[in-house]
């Protein structure tokens, strides 16, 4: 439907292919000048270009990125009762794969995980320039989960982070029985998180049968902050980030599988 600012198409308007090639910078040179002139004069095509750009951005925000998806969710194994692990879920440390060495490998992971992603945020999470992402594997399929999405016992979770600046990152979980630190691995005090978008973390979690809300905290600190200080901050009511840290929270209600 045309709006008052979009007069609608004319026979001279660009085709869908021409729009896509224009956005991709692949307009054949012989057509470039004519297309540019048309776009400048045609509100309809200008609106289509803008819409295509916005739609592409929305898709990429929603769909997993290649770097984040270089490997599928690993089959979890028992964590082995680490101190302070009140969580009955099992955790597996994934082998740290060298940074993607080929784009093909990245694409492999992307296509393995790029299944029906959903919008990552619903407004209840702490906003900022760093955030946590989570993917859920169920019945062999993987999808991106949003805050508030229902999960089921036996689901496997995989986490990513997005940060615009280098920070120290820790990831914690609270299943109602106490805090568990999932990242960095036990024995490590801090973990550096380099800037990146949807960078995968090296652990997966298989959810146990206890129902309730699983809460996950991503704590991004620019100065180094001890684990004890972060724990203390998260145990406040409500949980809050330590000074000079950002906090992102994901809550996943765990309900019986249908």
């Amino acid at each position: 439907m045309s709006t008052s600012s979009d007069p609608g198409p004319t026979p001279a308007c660009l085709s869908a292919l021409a729009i896509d090639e224009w956005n991709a910078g692949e307009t054949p040179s012989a057509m470039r000048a004519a297309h540019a002139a048309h776009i400048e004069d045609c509100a309809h095509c200008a609106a289509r270009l803008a819409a295509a750009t916005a739609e592409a951005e929305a898709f990429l925000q929603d769909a997993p990125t290649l770097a984040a998806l270089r490997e599928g969710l690993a089959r979890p194994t028992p964590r082995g009762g680490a101190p302070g692990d009140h969580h009955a879920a099992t955790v597996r440390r994934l082998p740290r794969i060298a940074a993607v060495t080929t784009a093909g490998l990245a694409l492999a992971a992307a296509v393995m995980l790029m299944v029906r992603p959903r919008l990552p945020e619903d407004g209840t999470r702490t906003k900022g320039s760093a955030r946590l992402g989570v993917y859920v594997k169920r019945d062999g399929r993987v999808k991106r989960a949003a805050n508030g999405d229902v999960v089921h016992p036996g689901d496997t979770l995989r986490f990513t982070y997005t940060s615009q600046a280098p920070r120290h990152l820790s990831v914690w979980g609270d299943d109602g029985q106490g805090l568990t630190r999932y990242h960095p691995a036990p024995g490590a005090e801090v973990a550096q998180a380099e800037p990146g978008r949807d960078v995968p973390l090296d652990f997966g979690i298989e959810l146990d049968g206890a129902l309730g809300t699983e809460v996950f905290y991503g704590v991004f600190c620019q100065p180094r902050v001890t684990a004890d200080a972060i724990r203390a901050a998260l145990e406040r009511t409500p949980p809050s980030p330590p000074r000079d840290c950002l906090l992102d929270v994901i809550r996943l209600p765990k309900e019986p599988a249908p």
Partner: protein
Amino acid sequence: MSLHAEGPAGVCTPHTVNMAAPDLDDFYRRYAPVAYRRARHLLGNEDDARELVHDVFASLLDRPEQFRGKSSLTTFMYSAVTHACLNRLRNQRNRARLLQQGMPEERESPQVRSAEALASLRSLLARMPEDLATVAIYYHGEGLTHDDIARILECSPRHVGNLVARVRHFIERQEAQP
């Protein structure tokens, strides 16, 4: 260099331009949104479209040589998505479901006069020879010009015109059947 190379029998043939395989990561970010939009448009279903994008990029991963010899990655992606959509439409179960669901609301093509016409076209696609179905998608489904289609199929606009005429003839024959 001509983008409209044509074989001796008038069939569509690939160009001879060699383009190095692109960085697949970048390729995904640049072209997956386009693939998704077209798949959603052609299939009329977001979930099917996402699965199709998955399949297309998985195929590219398996056979990256598909990139080579292409003059435009956009036209290459058009071709790959169209082929995948046709395969999906030919799937009996999906075809039946799509027909039951009706048509997507969004239509841009000036050639397409009504949703009913497109619904009929979609039901016909699964029965058309592949070369005709491909052209029908571009021409009737997306409103591309003969020149556009020729660039995607890597043949001459004249040959596209012949295919469009054959599509029309095919549709007329189908409609004439009781």
